[in-house]
């Protein structure tokens, strides 16, 4: 290719980027401002508008709080005590600010899941989707920075946990740059959480929100759009919801921060609980990589890889399964952490195994759903699909297995690969090394079962085999690996069984679907009432969690 050819193709690329940006920017619909008509019969489509209204409420109450709040380590807690208990209607303002922020996040989470399940993120809405995810992250960041301003025990220690995450970024990349510690020190304004941290977080909390809403306002102004697709009555309901929650469950204070004493339990904000649980059971470095660049990037990419099938969720089987799994895991992890039920020894293995099985079934569903080609009577999936899925599963297990081991058994954290272990055992002729892989069952004998003992037992003794296996002491690594293989074989058998069923029914005459009766939709007002009840219940749950977390 000549130089002019390169220049021309470069120009084409830039032109393509320009067109892409233009079409996506035209389709931008961050707060559901283009959904005025459909939202009349579907309250979910007014979620963006609700989020924007809540944001305005947060800003207004925030400006009021700024007047009385003092951002120093000595006076922050006292000034908030004064706002809450002495100033007239202070509790309302603080409640509206805090619960408004919680409700904003609830609304943004509802909107993100709505976009995900109804494929609203597809072309040309990729930019809308990315901005929604970014706004959600921005809301979380505002919550985090705002939380420290109270300067109570929970806030202090949660911030410490949060500020320690980036230090794990010191290890990869270029160690001389000290990137992890630099990020932590820039965030905290020094090497420790102190007066500089509180002013820094205050500035970030205040300025970021105001600047971003200015940008959104400019967007609305340039398009000549109506800001909020809500009736006056709906605004009243939303505001009343916040005041009601603030009256029923006043925003909590906790105890003032004490840097020399860790509280019994540290709770992050409710939307971080699931991720925080991940940190408890994962290797911190991988948890950092997974959480910070990993999760948002994966969320952005959904807009590009989910393109198959119609926009109905059941017509996108794998995406649907993945979404449900993530939702259930997020809620489940949060519940486990709230009730302090986490078990670091059994959780990683159980959760990973369950997720792998569910996602395999989701992928299998996808294969089956899309493998009937037009004009071709033969229903797939074929044996080839089963073998391919099986190979993928084994590869996944082979990667996951050493990770799981390194999290649970510290002594064995050298990334053991089962096949590598077997091969090296053969080469070095070490029978002791080879034996557990050939006869994995021999390792079970070291466990003693004491079925009728009360309370906690000493090392090596268990109430039942099930408990011993779950605690990861009954089985050696070889046995656990073979259990993974057994699980893979079970899924493979499932695939074959599924194929057999499809072979049998493929020649049967197809049943005619019954004529569809028009579905009666309930009255939209009732739908809206239900919608606000749902949001209020979510908010009450979140507020109740505040009671647990602070006391």
């Amino acid at each position, binding site marked *: 290719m000549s130089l002019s050819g390169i220049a021309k193709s470069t120009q084409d690329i830039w032109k393509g980027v320009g067109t892409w940006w233009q079409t996506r920017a035209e389709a931008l619909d961050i707060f559901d401002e283009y959904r005025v008509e459909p939202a009349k019969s579907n309250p979910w489509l007014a979620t963006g508008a609700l989020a924007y209204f809540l944001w305005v409420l947060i800003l207004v109450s925030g400006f009021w709080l700024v007047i009385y709040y003092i951002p120093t380590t000595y006076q922050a807690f006292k000034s908030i005590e004064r706002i809450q208990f002495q100033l007239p209607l202070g509790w309302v303002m603080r409640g509206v600010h805090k619960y408004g922020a919680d409700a904003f996040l609830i609304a943004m989470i509802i909107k993100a899941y709505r976009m995900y399940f109804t494929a609203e993120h597809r072309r040309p809405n990729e930019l809308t989707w990315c901005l929604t995810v970014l706004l959600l992250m921005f809301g979380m960041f505002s919550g985090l920075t705002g939380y420290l301003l109270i300067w109570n025990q929970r806030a202090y*220690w949660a911030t410490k946990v949060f500020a320690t995450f980036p230090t794990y970024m010191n290890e990869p990349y270029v160690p001389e740059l*000290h990137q992890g510690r630099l990020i932590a020190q820039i965030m905290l304004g020094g090497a420790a959480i102190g007066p500089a941290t509180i002013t820094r977080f205050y500035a970030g909390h205040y300025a970021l929100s105001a600047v971003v809403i200015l940008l959104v306002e400019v967007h609305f102004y340039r398009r000549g759009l109506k800001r909020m697709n809500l009736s006056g009555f709906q605004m009243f309901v939303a505001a009343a919801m916040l005041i009601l929650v603030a009256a029923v469950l006043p925003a909590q204070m906790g105890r003032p921060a004490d840097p020399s004493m860790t509280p019994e339990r540290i709770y992050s904000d409710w939307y971080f609980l699931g991720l925080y649980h991940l940190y408890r059971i994962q290797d*911190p470095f991988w948890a950092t990589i997974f959480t910070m660049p990993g999760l948002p990037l994966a969320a952005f990419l959904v807009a590009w890889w989910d393109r198959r099938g119609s926009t109905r969720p059941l017509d996108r089987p794998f995406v649907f399964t993945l979404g449900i799994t993530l939702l259930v895991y997020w809620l489940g992890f949060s519940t486990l952490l709230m009730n302090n039920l986490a078990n670091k020894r059994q959780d990683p293995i159980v959760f990973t195994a369950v997720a792998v099985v569910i996602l395999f079934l989701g992928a299998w569903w996808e294969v089956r759903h899309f493998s009937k080609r037009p004009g071709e009577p033969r229903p797939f999936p074929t044996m080839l699909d089963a073998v391919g899925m099986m190979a993928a599963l084994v590869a996944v297990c082979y990667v996951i297995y050493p990770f799981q081991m390194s999290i649970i058994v510290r002594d064995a954290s050298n990334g053991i690969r089962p096949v590598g272990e077997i091969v090296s055992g053969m080469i070095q002729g070490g029978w002791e090394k080879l034996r557990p892989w050939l006869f994995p069952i021999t390792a079970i004998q070291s466990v003693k079962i004491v079925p009728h003992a009360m309370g906690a037992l000493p090392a090596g003794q268990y109430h039942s085999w099930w408990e011993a296996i779950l605690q990861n002491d009954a089985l050696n690594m070889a046995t656990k690996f073979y259990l993974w293989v057994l699980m893979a074989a079970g899924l493979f058998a499932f695939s074959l069984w599924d194929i057999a069923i499809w072979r049998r029914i493929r020649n049967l005459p197809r049943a005619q679907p019954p004529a569809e009766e028009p579905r009666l939709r309930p009255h939209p007002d009732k739908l809206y009432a239900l919608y606000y009840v749902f949001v209020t219940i979510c908010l009450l749950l979140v507020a109740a969690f505040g009671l647990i977390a602070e006391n």
Partner: protein
Amino acid sequence: MAANSLDRRSLLARAFRAFISIPILGSVAALPSVILRILKPTNQAFNLNQPPDQPGGASQKVASINQFDRDWVMVDFTFFQRNMEYTPRAENVSLIPGFAVRIPEEVVTTFTGAAAPLAELVNMPGNQNVLCFSRICPHLGCIFNFFSPRDPRGPVWEPARVATEYGYPGVQTDRGYFACPCHFSVYDLTQIGKDQTGKPKLGLVVSGPAPRPPRTLEFKVENGELFITGMEAGGVA
């Protein structure tokens, strides 16, 4: 040919533009660095290759060396660490809780595989096998507890409790352990792990998510008194 020469001319123009863009791009690239210098308090504002500041502190007496008359004796203390901040006081004093522990001579080695001389590991003064640890957990910064045999504080701090409450079944009752209440990391004080740079270090993580042994405090002994002088780098106080 004409088209070619035109191409060549435009090419030269591009090359010239590329050449003059170098200093401009360089300045743009240097800008974040300057901004970072402003955002991150630092003692040498214009040294671009300077690593993050290591907070210091005045030499501080925490114990008398005579207190460590037998193995597993522990003295807890608070070290006042000072770091620079762009605030009116120009510095922040953070409280670093710490433990000074006397370690028994016979240390089980796991990281090196060979029995390493204890003296090299703990850098102890004289014949006292005392080592000072920061109580800040290297996992996510909580403050961990000490469990040891024959602890004068009573049975609440016996190692057996590490098995029942911190989920580490391999506890041996004649060893000392650090155990963190937040995420249940357990450190065995008789085994050797490795720190971030791969150097052998006492306090192997035997259970839980912590990535490396606890950080140590630098100390010296003068006239039979134990003085803390500084802290190992990394982490957030």
